C-alpha cells in the first residue's frame, strides 16, 4: 500500500449523498489529479458519521479537520488552502450552536466529545466497501477468538456475563436469548438479523448497515457458532437501498475471505447468509411477523409461546436480534465481557445509540453510555433547541414509547428508569419538541401511524386503535366532549392488556404518557376549545397586524377571497370565509400576518 501524506474522508451515506456528496467526491478527484496531488493524497469514501444535518461531511487527516456542508464550489479552495498550503478553511468549519464558536477538530466538537463510540466506532472512519479496512480495524478478531479458542457454551456464557440487552426495543437479555436457542434440540437452526427499522425517527440501524456492514456479519456469525446455526437471514427494509447494496457486497467479500461459508477458520463450523428485502409493513419488525414474512406470507404476528428459540423460522429454533445488538457483539469478543460490562448502569450495560431529531440543533446519531441523563444528550450533545426556543418534551421510543417532560430531564437513560417514567427505550429514536408543538397533535400523529400499520389480526389493536384515533381527531378538531379523556384512558388500558403483539400493546403509550404529563393541553382542547401551541387548525385564525403596508400580495394568494382591503391600506381577513390554509402568512413579505 502506497504511503500518502493526507487522507480526505468523504461521507457517502444516504444523508450526505442526498446533500451532494457524490459530486463533491468527483470534484476532489478532479482537482487532485489536475494539481498532481493524486499520488500523495488519498480520497476515501466512508459510511455515515451520524451527523447528516451538517453534510456533506469532509474530514481531512492527519489533522482531523472537520468540514461541514461542503459544496462542489468549495473543493478547489480546500485543495489549494488546506492540502497545498496547510491552512484551514475556517468558513467551512462547524460552528457550535450554543457558543457560536468555530471548532476545527473533529474530536473537539461537543456533539462527538461527549459520545462513547463503540458500536459506531468504525462508521465514518473506514471504507465500508473494503473488508481489508474492517480487518485493519481489528475486524473479525472477535469471531476468530470465539471460534478458535472457545466452545459454543463458553460463547453463550460470555454473552450472559456482558448483561447486554436487546437494542431493538424490548430490552430482553441477549445472552439468555442465545442460551434458550442453544439449548433447543435439532440439527437445523437459524440466526436472523432484524434490520426492518421502521420506527419513524430512528436511523441508527441504517447508519450501521451502511457504515460498518461487516460488524453485523461478524456478530451474526458469532451468534451462529454459539447456538449451532448454519444459516442466517438479514431482513432489511427495501427503503434502504444503499444498506442492501453494501450488505450484499460485504457478504461476497466475507465468503471470498473464508469468513462466511463452509468450514470457517478451518473448523467444523459453516454459516451462510441471505438477505431478504422487506416489502413495507411496520409490523414485520415484530419477530414472529418477520419470520412469517421471510416464509413468504402475510407478515402477521402469532401468539408466543412457543417462542422463536423453540419454534421459529420454518418451525426450527431461531434466534432473532436487532442490528445494533449484533453490532455490539464483535467488540464484546475483542475486549471480553468484563471490560464491556464496566460501561453503563447495573441493569443496563454498555452504550446505546440514539437518533436525535426534531427541533434540536444537532440532528444526528449519538452513542452514549447507559445511565447518562437526558439533559446531557439533548443540551450537551444535541446543542439545545433550534432557534432559541423553549424545550417542551422529548418523545423516546417512537410510536411505542412515551414523552419525557422538562421536569424529568435529569432521569438517567436506561431501560428501567424510562419505563418508570412512562416511556421506553424502544429503538432509541429521540424526537425533541419545543413550545410550538401540540402534544395532542403528537399523540394523534403516532396513533395514526400505529392504526394504519396494525395488521388487523387481533381485535383490541384493529378496532381499539381506530376508536382512539377517532377520539383524538375529534378533540383536535373541536368536537371533544366531557368524558373523552377518561374514555381514552380506559380504552388504552384494554388495548395494552389485550393486544397480541408488541405493536398493539404499546400503541396507546404515546396517548397515556402525554395524558400523564400534558393533561392540561387535552383539557384546553376539549373545554376551552383552544390549542395552547397554536397548531390545531380548527382553533386558530389568521390576523393582519399594523405592520401591513397594503401591498395586496396576500389578497392574490388567498384561494377563497377572504382578504379585503384597498391598495396601501391595511387589509383584513374575514374569519367566516377563511379556510386557515396559511398561504397568506407564507407570502407576506412584511411578516404582518400572524396566527392566533
Amino acid at each position: 500500500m502506497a504511503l500518502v501524506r493526507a487522507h480526505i474522508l468523504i461521507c457517502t451515506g444516504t444523508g450526505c449523498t442526498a446533500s451532494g456528496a457524490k459530486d463533491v467526491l468527483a470534484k476532489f478527484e478532479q482537482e487532485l489529479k489536475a494539481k498532481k496531488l493524486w499520488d500523495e493524497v488519498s480520497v476515501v469514501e466512508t459510511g455515515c458519521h451520524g451527523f447528516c444535518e451538517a453534510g456533506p461531511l469532509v474530514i481531512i487527516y492527519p489533522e482531523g479537520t472537520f468540514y461541514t456542508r461542503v459544496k462542489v464550489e468549495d473543493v478547489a479552495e480546500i485543495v489549494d488552502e488546506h492540502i497545498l498550503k496547510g491552512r484551514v478553511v475556517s468558513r467551512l468549519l462547524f460552528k457550535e450552536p450554543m457558543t457560536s464558536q468555530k471548532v476545527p477538530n473533529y474530536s473537539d466538537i461537543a456533539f462527538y466529545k461527549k459520545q462513547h463510540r463503540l458500536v459506531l466506532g468504525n462508521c465514518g472512519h473506514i471504507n465500508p466497501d473494503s473488508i481489508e479496512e474492517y480487518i485493519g480495524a481489528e475486524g473479525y478478531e472477535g469471531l476468530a477468538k470465539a471460534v478458535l479458542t472457545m466452545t459454543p457454551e463458553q460463547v453463550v456464557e460470555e454473552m450472559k456475563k456482558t448483561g447486554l440487552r436487546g437494542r431493538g426495543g424490548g430490552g430482553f437479555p441477549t445472552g439468555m436469548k442465545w442460551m434458550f436457542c442453544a439449548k433447543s434440540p435439532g440439527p437445523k437452526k437459524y440466526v436472523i438479523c432484524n434490520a426492518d427499522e421502521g420506527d419513524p425517527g430512528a436511523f441508527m440501524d441504517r447508519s450501521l448497515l451502511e457504515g460498518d456492514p461487516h460488524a453485523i456479519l461478524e456478530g451474526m456469525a458469532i451468534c451462529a457458532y454459539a447456538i449451532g446455526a448454519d444459516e442466517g437471514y438479514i431482513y432489511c427494509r427495501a427503503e434502504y437501498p444503499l444498506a442492501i447494496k453494501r450488505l450484499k457486497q460485504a457478504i461476497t467479500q466475507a465468503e471470498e475471505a473464508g469468513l462466511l461459508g463452509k468450514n470457517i477458520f478451518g473448523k467444523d463450523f459453516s454459516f451462510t447468509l441471505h438477505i431478504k428485502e422487506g416489502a413495507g409493513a411496520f409490523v414485520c419488525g415484530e419477530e414472529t411477523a418477520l419470520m412469517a414474512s421471510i416464509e413468504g406470507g402475510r407478515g402477521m404476528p402469532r401468539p408466543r409461546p412457543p417462542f422463536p428459540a423453540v419454534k421459529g423460522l420454518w418451525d426450527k429454533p431461531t434466534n432473532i436480534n436487532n442490528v445494533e445488538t449484533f453490532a455490539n457483539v464483535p467488540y464484546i469478543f475483542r475486549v471480553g465481557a468484563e471490560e464491556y460490562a464496566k460501561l453503563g448502569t447495573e441493569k443496563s450495560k454498555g452504550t446505546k445509540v440514539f437518533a436525535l431529531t426534531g427541533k434540536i440543533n444537532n440532528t444526528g446519531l449519538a452513542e452514549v453510555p447507559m445511565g447518562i441523563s437526558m439533559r446531557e444528550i439533548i443540551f450537551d450533545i444535541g446543542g439545545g433547541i433550534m432557534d432559541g426556543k423553549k424545550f417542551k418534551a422529548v418523545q423516546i421510543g417512537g410510536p411505542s414509547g412515551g414523552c419525557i417532560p422538562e421536569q424529568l430531564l435529569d432521569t438517567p437513560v436506561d431501560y428501567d428508569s424510562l419505563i418508570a417514567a412512562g416511556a421506553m427505550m424502544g429503538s432509541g429514536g429521540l424526537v425533541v419538541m419545543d413550545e410550538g408543538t401540540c402534544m395532542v397533535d403528537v399523540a394523534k400523529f403516532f396513533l395514526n401511524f400505529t392504526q394504519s400499520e396494525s395488521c388487523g389480526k387481533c381485535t383490541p389493536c384493529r378496532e381499539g386503535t381506530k376508536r382512539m384515533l377517532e377520539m383524538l381527531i375529534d378533540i383536535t378538531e373541536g368536537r371533544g366532549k366531557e368524558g373523552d379523556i377518561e374514555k381514552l384512558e380506559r380504552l388504552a388500558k384494554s388495548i395494552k392488556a389485550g393486544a397480541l403483539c408488541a405493536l398493539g400493546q404499546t400503541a396507546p403509550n404515546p396517548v397515556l404518557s402525554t395524558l400523564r404529563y400534558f393533561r392540561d393541553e387535552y383539557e384546553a382542547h376539549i373545554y376551552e376549545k383552544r390549542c395552547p401551541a397554536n397548531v390545531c387548525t380548527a382553533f386558530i385564525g389568521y390576523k393582519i397586524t399594523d405592520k401591513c403596508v397594503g401591498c395586496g400580495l396576500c389578497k392574490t394568494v388567498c384561494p377563497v377571497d377572504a382578504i379585503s382591503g384597498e391598495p396601501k391600506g391595511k387589509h383584513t381577513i374575514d374569519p367566516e370565509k377563511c379556510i386557515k390554509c396559511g398561504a397568506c402568512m407564507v407570502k407576506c413579505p412584511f411578516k404582518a400576518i400572524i396566527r392566533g
Partner: protein
Amino acid sequence: MVEKTLEKSWEQLNQLLESYRCTKGSMIPVLQQAQEIFGYLPKDVLIKISKELDVAISQVFGVVTFYSQFHLEPRGKNIIRSCQGTACHVRGAKAVLDAIRERLGLKDGQITTPDNEFTIETVACIGACGLAPCLMINDDTHGRLTAESVAPMIDKYYNNKK
C-alpha cells in the same frame, strides 16, 4: 412496439419463476421482481405466479394487499416517496407534500399524474431524519426541503425522462 415489450416481460417472468422453482419462501422476492419487470402487478401475472408456485390465488392476493410495496394499478415512471415520519412531521412535511401535489396538479385521492410521469406516496420514515423534511424520488434521497424548493426539484425529473 408495446406488444413486443410485453412479450419480453412475460419471457422475463418465466425465467424468474424458473430460477425460484423449489425455493421455499420465494413468494415475496418473486412478487418484488415481477413488479420490477411489469411496473405493477397485473391480474394475469398474479394468476401465473399462483399457478407456478402452487399457491392459491387468494393467498397471493392476500400477500400483495398486505404489503404497501405492492401495487395492483399501473404507476408513474417516477416514484416520489414523501416522508411523513415524526422528525419530518414536526419540521413541516405536510406543507411539502401539499406543494408537490399542487405542482403535479393532483386532485383529492389521486396519486398518479394523468401522463403517468409521477406517482406520489407517503412513507412513514426513510431514515434520513437528519435532513427532515425529506423525500425519495426513485432511489435518490432529497432533504432539507421547503414548500418553495420542492417544485423546481420535481421539474428536473420531468425533463430527465427515463
